[in-house]
């Protein structure tokens, strides 16, 4: 039952985007998000849309797959849009009781919805084309300068990758404990929410105990294999920029410049607000 849950929905495909260095994709995603929040006009979103369509095409990830990622935020999207629609002060179009629909509200809701949707699509495109492993490697390498201010970058990325490795194991373990408790008449399904949460306690306690034991074992196994932290460590798969990575950086730079220049000097507005 619990085995179906996957983290980081990687979509296997053979494309340029998949082969890009994870650092390029991380930097690209950040740059893309920055452009989304930089200006508040239509031009920037048209450019962002063009950028998205282009990269999605390149990545060979089916659009339906990406759109599925939006399902998770539909409710959030509707609520925030409603709030923005009716609670933004301005020139009212229709009003009832205390709420009024304003032009400003429509504009605010529209921009917010677009920003959120673009944000989710863009970042899920990154997780769809990058394995969790590559992501942690990329993050470690990008955050390396933080080492100078005593941020334990290597340790953080090590913890991340170990956590990823142990998710399926702990899932299996949870399943096992659940079945063992159910065999002794534990009830996880009926009752109201408080009852359900209470029923989880006999599940969580053994799970915690066993994960501590696992952590202890793992630490011993790592030490037995000469693990002494990040210093003096070599990499089996070191990150190396290829020609396409430099091209991608160039492309990103062009995108940034175009977005900034057009967004700043040729703004298109909806409803003239």
């Amino acid at each position, binding site marked *: 039952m619990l085995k179906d849950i996957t983290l980081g929905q990687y979509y296997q495909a053979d494309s340029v985007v998949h082969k890009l260095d994870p650092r390029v994709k991380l930097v690209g995603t950040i740059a893309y998000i920055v452009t989304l929040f930089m200006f508040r006009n239509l031009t920037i979103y048209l450019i962002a849309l063009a950028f998205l369509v282009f990269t999605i095409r390149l990545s060979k990830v089916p659009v339906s797959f990406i759109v599925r990622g939006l399902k998770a935020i539909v409710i959030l999207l509707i609520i925030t849009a409603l709030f923005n629609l009716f609670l933004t002060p301005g020139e009212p179009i229709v009003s009832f009781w205390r709420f009024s629909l304003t032009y400003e509200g429509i504009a605010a809701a529209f921009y917010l919805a677009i920003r959120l949707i673009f944000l989710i699509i863009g970042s899920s495109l990154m997780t769809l084309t990058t394995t969790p*492993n590559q992501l942690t490697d990329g993050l470690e390498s990008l955050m390396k300068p933080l080492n100078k201010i005593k941020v334990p970058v290597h340790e953080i990325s090590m913890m991340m990758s170990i956590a990823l490795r142990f998710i399926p194991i702990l899932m299996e373990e949870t399943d096992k404990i659940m079945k063992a408790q159910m065999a002794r008449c534990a009830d996880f399904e009926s009752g109201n929410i408080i009852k359900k949460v209470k029923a989880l306690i006999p599940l969580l306690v053994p799970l915690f105990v066993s994960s501590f034991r*696992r952590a202890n*074992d*793992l630490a011993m196994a790592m030490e*037995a294999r000469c693990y002494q932290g990040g210093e003096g*460590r070599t*990499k*089996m798969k070191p990150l190396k920029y290829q020609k396409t990575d430099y091209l991608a950086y160039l492309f990103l730079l062009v995108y940034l410049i175009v977005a900034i220049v057009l967004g700043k000097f040729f703004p298109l507005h909806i409803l003239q607000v």
Partner: protein
Amino acid sequence: MKVYIRHFLQKKGWKLIDMSMIKTKKLTFEYIHRDEEGNVEGITKAVDGVDLDIKEGDFIAILGHNGSGKSTLAKHMNAILSPSEGTIYVAGMDTRDEKNIWDIRKNAGMVFQNPDNQIIGQVVEEDVGFGPENMGVPTKEIWQRVEESLKAVGMYAYRKHSPNKLSGGQKQRVSIAGVLAMHPKCIVLDEPTAMLDPQGRKEVIRAVRALNEVENITVILITHYMEEVVYADKVFVMDKGQIRMEGTPKEIFSQVDELQKLRLTVPQVTLLAEECRKAGMPFSKGILTTKEFMEELQCLLS
């Protein structure tokens, strides 16, 4: 001093005969129990005055039931535990000296019981590369070592797989490959088969034997399955932290009564032969395999 000279000569590339891989002198390890205020409640000697001498290239088995101190002894061989009293030398280095710890761990690899709790990588090949990465081996050589080690345990075809999808025996073989990639002189296996099914046990033992015979790596196998001991050069039987019996598998298994006193079960063939012998049939002592039994039986019948 002698040890250091030997070590020095060995570093220069001399092949020394009869070199001690692991040597213990009166090795003792105490677990101290404390109550809530930290007062000493009692002391358990998990290992009690053990003298061992393991030569390079040997296949050693250490037998014992649960709580006999065999795992504690194993952890000393990798410098995970440090002795309370006595000394242990691994490849000529004293484990109590902090400076030696990493050299000892390079020389004596360790495989643990639970395969899930010792695989670090998310892909088989990455896990095997973990040890060499820690040792600072150059990238190109890491790949060579990973390939060699995976081939040595017959897991090369699975190099791109996720460890979660492998069977217990396969996971344990990956763990062995992970140790092998560090090019140790000696591998200590702490009940590597305890959590496996019979098929997985066979796979692992076959891989271990191949390492000993082909690569001439010293193997110290800690187990409570008697069948796995049959191929060892020498067997030590532990009880209550002490070594009670030592000898070749044949010598050990010819003392069926003694073994049963130490709460160990002998292989079924050995037991059968022993029962037959007691009933008056002239079987020789210490029969270990079905093949031996059949040969003797055929001799008797003809």
